[in-house]
């Protein structure tokens, strides 16, 4: 088992983020709490609208401050990001905590060379270093992230790189200051399968080398199976299940996780025969269903008049795998159905 005695690298406590839009208030994140410990890889899984990206953005206070209202606590090495001074947060960004975004095509500034952009990330936290020395650091980093002939490519512009190579540049920017925590928001979603595999391998190798903690946001359960230790499943702005990776795949404890696993794992296997599906589609975050947000799509819902429709379920320990689930069903039911649903 992992050692959780030490202080967590990241501690999110009752985080709530809402956006004011013309159509109403969007409750993107609705009371999320979790801890991430040193050296771990934690995956946050969810579909679009689950609040996972907004949650990730609030860790470095990247959400638009004029429309977003954020409450709760986000502790990074003892500092509460949400209440700290802008200058303190700026000091954390890119040095203690770095971020990788989904689309490498748009994540790089098209007007400067990739070398300038990596160097910029280094120099802002190392103002005493000369540009010439920084260039050497950048070259070293480009080699580490696997960019061939870096001496030539350092002076090229982002549009001269392929998608996979650009994502390597983004990773170089993220890792140039050896951050303690790396937040990767769908880092491989925009990439081709063969390139996706390369990038995942690279991230795992660099994690070992730098001893980083990784918080990886994804919708792809394959990626989760590949890299995660701890898994957090989000639905409609809340955590519905938190388990370690073995448990999530072999004995999930939430109906949404069952559905997700079922609908994905069944189609890899064989041709024909109906796929397992979750009916309906994710709810609007402006008008969430009463009670458990998943109940209108849930085949195991306790029916009309039940707690499923009136009371938001709270995350609680279920079974003996260390899993936590936010479901009104009885523990035994969750464990027995879950064990039957899991992949073998």
């Amino acid at each position, binding site marked *: 088992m992992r050692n959780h005695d030490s202080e967590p690298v990241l501690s999110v406590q009752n985080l709530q983020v809402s956006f004011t839009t013309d159509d109403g208030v969007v409750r993107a994140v609705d009371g999320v709490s979790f801890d991430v410990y040193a050296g771990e890889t934690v995956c946050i899984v969810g579909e679009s609208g689950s609040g996972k990206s907004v949650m990730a953005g609030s860790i470095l206070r*990247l959400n638009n401050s*004029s429309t977003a209202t954020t409450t709760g606590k986000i502790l990074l090495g003892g500092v509460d990001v949400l209440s700290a001074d802008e200058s303190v947060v700026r000091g954390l*960004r890119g040095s203690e905590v770095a971020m990788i*975004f989904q689309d490498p095509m748009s994540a790089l500034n098209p007007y400067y060379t990739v070398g300038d952009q990596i160097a910029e*990330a280094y120099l802002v936290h190392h103002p005493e270093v000369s540009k010439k020395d920084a260039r050497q650091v950048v070259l070293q980093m480009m080699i580490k992230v696997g960019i061939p002939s870096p001496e030539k490519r350092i002076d090229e*512009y982002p549009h001269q790189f392929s998608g996979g190579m650009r994502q390597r540049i983004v990773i170089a*920017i993220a890792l140039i200051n050896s951050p303690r925590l790396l937040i990767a928001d769908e880092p491989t979603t925009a990439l081709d399968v063969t390139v996706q595999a390369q990038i995942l391998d690279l991230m795992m190798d660099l994690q070992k080398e730098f001893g980083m903690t990784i918080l990886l946001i994804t919708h792809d359960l394959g990626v989760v199976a590949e890299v995660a230790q701890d898994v957090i499943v989000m639905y409609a702005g809340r955590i519905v299940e938190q388990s370690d990776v073995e448990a999530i795949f072999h004995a999930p404890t939430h109906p949404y996780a069952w559905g997700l696993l079922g609908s994905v794992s069944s189609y890899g296997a064989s041709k024909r025969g109906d796929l397992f599906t979750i009916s309906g589609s994710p709810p609007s975050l402006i008008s969430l269903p009463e009670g458990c947000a998943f109940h209108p799509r849930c085949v195991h819902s306790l029916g009309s008049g039940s707690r499923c429709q009136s009371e938001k379920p709270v995350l609680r320990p279920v079974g003996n795998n260390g899993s936590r689930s936010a479901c009104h069903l009885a523990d035994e039911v969750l464990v027995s159905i879950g064990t039957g649903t899991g992949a073998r």
Partner: protein
Amino acid sequence: MLLFIIRRLFFAIVLLIAVSVFTYFLFALLPTDPAALSCGIHCKPETIAANRIRLGYDKSIFEQYWLFLKGIFVGRDYGIGTAAFTCPAPSLGYSFNQHACVTSLIGETFPVTAYLSIGAFILWMMIGIGVGAIAALNKGKWQDRLATAFASVGVSLPTFYFGLLALFSIVIWFQILPFPSYESPLDNFPAFITAMILPWLVLAIISAASYTRLTRNGMLEAMNEDFVRLGVAKGLRLRVILRRYVMRQALIPIVTIAGLDFAGLLGGAIITESVFSLPGMGRMSIRAVVDSDLPVLVGTTMIAAVFIVLANVIVDIAYGFLDPRVRVS
């Protein structure tokens, strides 16, 4: 890159020739007889015929155009015998109304237009981009609303109306400034400034309005870009992000439009010059229209066309420098 520039210049020259043909033939097809106009109302038919030969209007239109084109490069002689005179190259024709070579007429009026355009251009870029940036940085707040209001009023104000309003209020009612009377900055600089300040402001405010809008929207769009988010995540200061990430992106379309707008002004700020009685090319063009002074009209139109075409080439080349993605390797 060099090949790209050469290619653009080549196309620019082709375009200019086409424009010159079009302009020349357009004016030649007008139902006015320059020969008759050149000798007043009570004119004997034989004088008109003689004038026609003297002015070269007896020749076919193609020959006339050829002489016009030739005149640009080698100069041109008009009349015969003792009445003969020469407009040296580059000759854009001879105005019989004003008894002067068109080139020298343009030479006299162009500086006025240039001073007006350059001054107004600098002012409007500063106001437009400044106000637009303030609006974008305070999106939804009162600064933004004020700037948006300024932009809507500015674009919808007709120049002549706003110009006259400024003239009446500041010069006549409040008498803050004397009535503008243009003097060359080389002769009397203070008088030049006093005469120019109102036209500069009027032109600048009206043009700035659309730039305010462009800057504001461009910046807001840029601020939503992923790469700006990455800039923030790197730990860069807001100032650096604005300069290197946001403005860099927002200014590119502005450069294009600014280049064309400025070139358009250089062809003559017709209304502003008329309202403030500035002896520039625009006012000369208007006079030429009223007097049916075709050679002057052809000349000023050609000059305006040259500026627009050149501005296009310069903007295209500037684009290559500003945006590495369109840079041709």
